[in-house]
């Protein structure tokens, strides 16, 4: 019987009124790789941040190697033997790789920092992992994969007894993933407990000994990986959720003319050779994991990143965008992924945000006509039922869902033909989510062409007429929505049907991932 490395009992965590974790038990043994699984918002990140001292739990106890952890700070957790990589969040871009690896634990000679020695030590660690990263390089100049490796080496250099890896393989080449796994097995033999978070089921099956699955902030199951075939895992992750989406009416789309057409379009890095057609009145969803190229594709269409090869056509005319303004003129609007930094100007009023993209149409001789701006603002507030004390309140006073409606309203004000939505429901409450999905359907019914990215598959299934699965920058499969419904479940209630479709989509995403890796493997 191995010793228990981490015992978290009855952990709850509330953020304001939101219960991110509800009475979760989580136990990890020394010398095992323990996978932590769950969909978006299941509470994985939250429980890891609690373990790591970034969040203070609202209730529950934590024991690390038999010692209760009573102080909840990153320093206390690290002193207890916990090291964690943070998906590139703990690297300082202006320092070198070696300086980052040993940050706060600098290598010294004669009381002074010795960077040369640190570089040699870092080089040894990288050699042990068998990966090629220059310890003297400035982190800001590195590619995503090398940053990720630096992050991992930083975590393991701390001689931790518990190593937490949050999506460590996202930006890694497949050969680097193999090396990482070899290294993790070495750590396991030394009795280190590894907590491994990933959306990639094939990886989990290869490396993990046991898995714990969370859903909606609750513990679902902990079991040996042998007892959890991939489809069982997916079933537990998806669960029998009632998302309030099931009652959204789905009517078949009335397809109009082609609104947006991509012909063999490639970006600088991703996406790779995409051909895709979206008709007026149609909602097309992009499914895939982080790094699959969905956001890059959205950025190409919105003129934020340059098209390297291929052709984009809008309303059957070829277009070429040099800046976002060109795309907006051509009738494309993007509701971006990062609402706070890319979508809204938080300190400005609801009215100023709503009219920002449409200012030219609302002004005369350079002066904004107040009456027109007022009318445009009120029209959007009413149409989207934005809940705000007044149109002059700053957007920062609104809830996440209403902020997102402001972003959408900003673009509806310029009346685009093609609307691209990148994770439009991220971080907003369930009520607003279904409102936004409903709005998407309604816009399509009014003849807009909509491209929607979401990591919440149930949302894609509710909102879209077609779903395109992407992996590694390429289109893997193009489903019509109906093709995802399981005929065997046709007579059960809609919640069941949605769940069955979600499992099929999830399996397709995992297959796409494996196929994508084979292709890049073959190319190496």
């Amino acid at each position, binding site marked *: 019987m191995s010793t228990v490395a981490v015992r978290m009992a009855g952990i709850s965590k509330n953020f304001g009124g939101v219960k991110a974790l509800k009475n979760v038990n989580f136990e990890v043994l020394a010398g095992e790789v323990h996978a932590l699984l769950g969909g978006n918002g299941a509470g994985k990140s939250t429980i890891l941040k609690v373990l790591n001292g*970034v969040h203070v739990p609202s209730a529950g106890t934590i024991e690390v190697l038999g010692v209760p952890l009573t102080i909840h700070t*990153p*320093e206390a957790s*690290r002193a207890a033997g916990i090291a964690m990589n*943070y998906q590139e*969040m*703990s*690297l*300082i*871009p*202006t*320092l070198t790789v070696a*300086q980052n690896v040993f*940050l*706060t634990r*600098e290598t010294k000679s004669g009381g*002074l*920092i*010795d960077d040369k020695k640190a570089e040699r030590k870092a080089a040894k660690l990288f050699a042990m992992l068998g990966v090629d990263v220059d310890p003297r390089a400035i982190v800001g100049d590195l590619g995503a994969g090398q940053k990720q490796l630096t992050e991992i080496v930083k975590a393991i250099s701390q001689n931790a007894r518990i190593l937490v890896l949050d999506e460590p393989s996202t930006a890694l080449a497949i050969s680097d993933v193999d090396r990482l796994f070899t290294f993790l097995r070495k750590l396991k033999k030394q009795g280190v407990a590894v907590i491994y978070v990933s959306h990639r089921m094939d990886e989990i099956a290869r490396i993990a000994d046991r898995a714990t699955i969370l859903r909606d902030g609750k513990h679902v199951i902990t079991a040996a990986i042998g007892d959890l075939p991939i489809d069982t895992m997916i079933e537990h992750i998806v669960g029998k959720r009632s998302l309030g989406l099931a009652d959204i009416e789905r009517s078949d789309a009335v397809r109009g003319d082609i609104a947006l057409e991509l012909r063999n379009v490639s970006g600088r890095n991703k996406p790779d050779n995409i051909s895709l057609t979206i008709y007026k009145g149609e909602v097309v969803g992009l499914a895939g994991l982080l790094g699959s190229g969905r956001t890059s594709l959205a950025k190409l269409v919105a003129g934020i990143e340059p098209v390297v090869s291929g052709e984009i056509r809008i309303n059957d005319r070829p277009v070429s965008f040099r800046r976002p303004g060109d795309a907006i003129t051509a009738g494309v609007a993007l509701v971006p992924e990062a609402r706070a930094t890319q979508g809204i100007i938080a300190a400005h009023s609801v009215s100023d945000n709503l009219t920002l993209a449409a200012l030219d149409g609302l002004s005369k001789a350079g002066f904004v006509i107040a009456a027109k701006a007022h009318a445009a603002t009120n029209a959007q507030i009413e149409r989207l039922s934005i809940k705000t004390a007044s149109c002059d309140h700053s957007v920062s006073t609104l809830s996440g869902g209403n902020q997102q409606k402001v972003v959408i309203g900003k673009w509806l004000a310029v009346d685009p033909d093609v609307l691209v939505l990148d994770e439009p429901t991220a971080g907003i409450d369930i009520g607003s989510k279904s409102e936004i999905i409903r709005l998407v359907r309604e816009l399509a019914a009014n003849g807009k062409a909509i491209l929607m990215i979401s990591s919440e598959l149930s949302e894609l299934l509710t909102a879209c007429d077609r779903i395109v699965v992407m992996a590694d920058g390429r289109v893997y499969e193009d489903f019509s929505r109906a093709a995802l419904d399981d005929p065997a479940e046709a007579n059960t209630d809609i919640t069941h049907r949605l769940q069955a479709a979600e499992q099929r989509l999830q399996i397709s995403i995992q297959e796409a991932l494996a196929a994508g890796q084979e292709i890049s493997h073959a190319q190496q």
Partner: protein
Amino acid sequence: MPNSDTTHAAGLVGAFLQNWRQNIIYIGFIAIFVVFALTLNDRGFLNPNNLLNIVRQTAMIAVMAIAMTFVLSAGEIDLSVGVVAGLSSVTVAMVISVAGPFAGILAGLATGIAIGTFNGWLTTKIGIPSFLTTLAMMGIAKGIAMWVSGTSAVPILSQSYAWWFGGGSIGPIPVLLFWILIFSAVGHVVLRRTGFGRRVLATGGGEQAAGYSGINTAKIKFRVLVISSTAAALAGMFYAGRLQSGRFQLGEGDELSVIAAAVLGGTSLFGGKGTVIGTIVGALMIGLINNGLILMGLEFSQQLIARGGIIILAVALSQKRA
């Protein structure tokens, strides 16, 4: 093997030229020096006395700029250094007149530490950006200095104080040169080779990442602001020693030269990047330009324009192009 030595040297020169944008300050310094040496030689530019004068005039800026390197590297700014220098010159002079030089020195340092603590407290505990905190402090410190001195100069009669702090020289070498060397050496080692320096750079380079790495970023910001005010107080003490009096106008407007010196030297206004050696060269370059423009016989108005133009040119050349 002499051969490998030469290739090594050639490699170093090559690397230097390749990173010429980073090293523009050193290239610029040498270029300006050579131009002035050639064109202003007949007006005494290369005269050792003139060169030592540049050191004397630059010392205060240099000391403040070394501390400012830490402040900027941590992603903060301190606009109050000039007025703090003025205030400390006044407190030093007043305390010396009643309690002697030793008490005066302590009073001067205490002035800097007190103001720095207040700046740091407002910035890290109350959460007012350091730009605003120190902007407000510009008015407060100046007001205090005017008030306690009755806006008049306070003479310093202690010859030993004046010798140590700015007025004295050993043979031809001004004492201020030794101060600059000491502060440069200490500043360089602390920023490059100590855990504190590394934490300063990490805080400015990525505050969230630094926090996740276990660095108490508020404490680091607090400390750099205290260091900056204390260095400003020392600069004020040098002014007082050199002019044998304390007055509230001393150091007025220095904050711009100080920030310019650090930025010219390659320290980033956005934090995370800073070098003390670069800052010293930046400060000397500003002193050099001032001196050369005076020797050229330009009017003060023309000097201001020329100096601004040269600084813009140098900083523009050092910018990395995408």
